[in-house]
């Protein structure tokens, strides 16, 4: 039986804008398992990114409970939360978010260096991984010299270099053409299967839905529909 990696129950979250209170998430229930690719779909402002932020411990829910690998991440002290996140969660952002002033290898090595992996070991691992991603020649390049697809591959490498159990992706294919989008999804699928990782993808891109094991559709802060491709 697969292990539950994320278990969110009755999550509620609201923000205040001036005097107005906006309810972003209403009684959201959400479960993921290891070796599973989950996609969250929904219109802008529906609360998809807020769910990712709560899972990552970047913001706290107002009520409900969110267990990540069995731990209530948002109740951990700040230092432990950061450490937990650094070790167990990988991130891919919509606009890649590579640091432009450091090299591709350095960008990719950050999660390892933050876990005090010796520099040489870290960069050796980075070189191996980037080679397998077809980026062996770009180790010492700066991100701005790479194409959008290459930057996204570096972003995946950074997300999985430290073999996290969960990878959170925010619109990973939104600015790529179908071919490059498919390449990225193949890579993510490969990582999911090899590392038995849980991959949570927030997307608008209908082209990639076929890669998902489970699809949650969110509207107005409520999960409206759950489709399981495996079933």
């Amino acid at each position: 039986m697969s292990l539950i990696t994320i278990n969110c129950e009755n999550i509620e979250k609201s923000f205040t804008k001036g005097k107005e209170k906006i309810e972003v998430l209403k009684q959201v229930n959400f479960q993921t398992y290891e070796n599973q690719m989950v996609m969250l779909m929904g219109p802008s402002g529906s609360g998809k990114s807020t769910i990712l932020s709560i899972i990552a411990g970047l913001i706290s829910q107002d009520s409900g409970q969110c267990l990540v690998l069995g731990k209530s991440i948002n109740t951990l002290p700040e230092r432990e939360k950061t450490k937990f996140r650094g070790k167990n969660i990988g991130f891919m952002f919509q606009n890649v978010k590579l640091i432009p002033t450091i090299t591709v290898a350095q960008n990719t090595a950050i999660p390892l260096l933050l876990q005090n992996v010796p520099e040489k070991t870290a960069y050796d691992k980075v070189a191996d991984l980037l080679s397998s991603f077809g980026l062996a020649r770009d180790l010492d390049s700066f991100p701005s010299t790479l194409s959008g697809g290459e930057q996204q591959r570096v972003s995946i490498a950074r997300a999985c270099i430290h073999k996290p159990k969960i990878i959170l992706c925010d619109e990973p294919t939104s600015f790529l053409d179908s071919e490059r989008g498919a390449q990225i999804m193949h890579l993510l699928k490969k990582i999911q299967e090899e590392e038995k990782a849980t991959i949570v993808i927030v997307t608008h891109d209908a082209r990639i839905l076929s890669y998902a094991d489970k699809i949650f559709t969110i509207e107005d802060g409520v999960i409206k529909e759950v489709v399981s491709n495996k079933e």
Partner: protein
Amino acid sequence: MYKIGLQMLTQDKAKFIGLILSLSFSALIITQQTAIFFGIMMRTYSTITDTPQAEIWVMDPNVQHIDDVNPLRDTDLYRIRSIDGVEWAVPLFKGLIRARLPDGHYQTCILQGVDDATFIGGPCNMLQGSLYDLRAPDAVIIDDYELDKLSFTRASSPVRPEFIEGASLEHPVVGDTLELNDRRAVIVGISRLTRTFLTYPIIYTTYNRALFYAPYERKLLSFVLVKANSTTPAEQLCETIHTLTGLQALTKQQFENKTISYYLHQTGIGVNFGLTILFGILIGAALAGQIFFSFVVSNLAYLALLSVLGASKRLLAQITIIQALWVALLSWHIGTGAAAAIGFATQATRTSFYMPLSLYLATGLIIFIICFIASLIAISKIYKIELGELFKQ
């Protein structure tokens, strides 16, 4: 991670260069102005520096600084010589005199009369001739720093060469004759000592000949130079001399400090230079603080990213401090290096420049404090990063 932090700093070339330039400029201003101030202050007591044999200077109780001469009685010399603990005591004459140059023009000079027997108080560094040449009749030694002021024309025309096309002034040489108070003085040597604050040419001769040249006064003994014997500390001997004679007796260091104190408090030098240095610090701090702060703010998204990827706020603060210290280290050396280069390039000119190790270190300390404060302000921003925004950007 620190290496990556430094690379984030240095690869942002425009901001990095702006930071380095502003702080280097601040370090340059602080070092250069202070070094000039030190140089000027050193010139105020150059006579004391250039008389290394004297451990103690005895003078009238009202003397405020080395150029403030209130003459003593001749008998004071003998009274001092009779005090226990005095190894030797010699007279020194110091005063202003007008020298008439061979072409008939005049120049005010400092006349220094040194002990006839030992030449203590005389120049230690001779470029031409010897100190012992002062034994010759009418002999004087002139200092080469202000030779321009003793320059004259050898042409018979009474008109100064600056008014005659093609003519030029020549420096005096050994063998040339001057007139001091209508009395003949023959140049027998040229020395090179420390430049003086007053920038008058210095003329050395023996004490008795100096009295002969000097305008007549009842008392002409300016200072008594004293050396304590090996068993008596100089400070203790100063007290004894003061108690027994009522005269002011100061060690070399005390007299230097008293002279500096006079110029600092009785002239505007201290305040004027102090303000310049203060503005250097303030401008540097404001520029560097502002640029460093904007550098951190422009990098906040990346610092937030590092935080999401597992960097603690403490680590981010440490990275920011290391970035600031690196900027400080570079700027400190560029600024002080530039100041030293300016000092070196202008050493042959009238510019006074003295840059001791303590000034180099003090400038570094100031620059490090500026950067540290700038980094603390920036760190306060890091602690307010909203990580939740990262998925929305």
